[in-house]
């Protein structure tokens, strides 16, 4: 699923033996996706939550067992718990529809794929994802941004893989519509239309 999983697995194994440089490699491979996931969950506080999560990851690294892909799932679980703690403390919910309209105006409804790709900023993409229902947003973030497969994402979320696949699929379809590009699923019968 993820290009660097082999490298990540090796770095984790060496870090578990006490190799500090390997831990740095590990951090650099995992942090971008983890931070993207957290930004989708807690917005601007993502850096703080990620920092908390890394303290826990650094402390509990010896307990972890698994490969690179497994480490993404394990660290995402820790990050998610920290994010939920944070949300509970702050009584802040992920911002949703407030900016949605602005975002939707930016990539024009008839923009091509390339234009959408170029014009979609990080913040716009995250706002779009945050506009999704919570379960869809998390499923999309874990699968697309963190790079987990459905069973791993399901374990992070405490759900069944089928439910995560469905949520991810619906979220992506909704995003495609909002981006003003047609997903294959709009044509229904050809591939995935039966889930409408």
């Amino acid at each position, binding site marked *: 699923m993820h290009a660097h999983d082999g490298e990540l697995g090796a770095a984790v194994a060496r870090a578990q033996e006490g190799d500090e440089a390997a831990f740095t490699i590990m951090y650099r491979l995992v942090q971008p996706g983890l931070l993207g996931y957290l930004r989708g969950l807690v917005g601007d506080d993502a850096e703080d939550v990620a920092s908390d999560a890394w303290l826990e990851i650094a402390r509990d690294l010896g307990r972890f067992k698994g490969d690179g892909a*497994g480490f993404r799932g394990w660290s995402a679980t820790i990050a998610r718990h920290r994010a939920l703690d944070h949300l509970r403390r702050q009584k802040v919910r992920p911002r949703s529809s407030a900016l949605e309209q602005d975002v939707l105006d930016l990539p024009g409804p008839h923009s091509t794929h390339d234009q959408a790709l170029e014009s979609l900023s990080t913040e716009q993409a995250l706002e779009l994802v945050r506009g999704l229902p919570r379960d869809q947003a998390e499923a999309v973030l874990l*699968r697309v941004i963190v790079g987990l497969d459905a069973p791993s994402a399901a374990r992070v979320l405490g759900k069944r893989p089928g439910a995560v696949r469905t949520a991810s699929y619906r979220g992506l379809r909704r995003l495609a519509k909002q981006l003003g590009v047609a997903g294959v699923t709009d044509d229904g019968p050809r591939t995935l239309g039966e889930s409408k």
Partner: protein
Amino acid sequence: MGEQQSGGGSPGRRRVHPDGVGHGRASGPAVVLDDAELEALLYAAVLRGHAVDAEGEQRAVAAFRAARDAGVHRARTRRRDDWRPRERQRLARSMKTALSVFVAGLTLGGVAYAAIGSSDTPDASSEDKGRPTPTADAPDRPATGPSAGSGGASGKPGHPTTAQDTEAKCRAFDQVAGRGQAMDSTAWERLVAEAGGADKVAAYCAEQLAAATNEPGKKADESAPADNGQDRSGNSGADRSGSDAAGSGTSGSDASGSGTSGSDTSGSDTSGSGNGAENAENAEKKN
């Protein structure tokens, strides 16, 4: 569900929608995204804005160093920390199970082997014939050569007959009677049951010991068929009486003990009961 594509599609792959033209949707979007392309678009957009946070990295590395140096990294893996593929988790669990079964098998096999070894000493018994054997005038050590020899031959090999078992317990009973929790052990409960009541144990034992001393060979032979039903329980009681009473006896030491005593057939009964009594005493001291 039907969205296999989102899992199996390779991110970043682009293709022109095959039905794009045929549907006559000229007014619609010119380019169509499949799920993989949409995922690639999202991934690129979200991660494009990622700036390396050197300060955060330093904090994380410092935490790693502190945990490593404090030995925190040797902590035990909890279930939620095990992200190995499912098959491998199962394999690890079944390996663990198999290993414990193997160890248990070895232990039981060792006990059985030692028990066989203890009865398999014909040379020793012939050697011992020349030795003076304890006789009836030594009531503390009343077991005799003939009794042990014929008992071993007529009863199950390697196990004392029920009569001998009872004698051994009776002798130990004499030493610990009325003292401590050794009396609560399974072996004593059996003895009490055999005697027909706690107050009858002394009389029962006196009778058993007298019978064993007066007509040792005959007694063993007679009691073996009569007590067939109890034979197994009696034997297992004998096996356990040592460890039960001692509270610390392992099966290994138990087995080696019977192995040594077995090499000296005339003394096997005596030394066995002596051990039992000592064990009982030890247990009592601990208590």
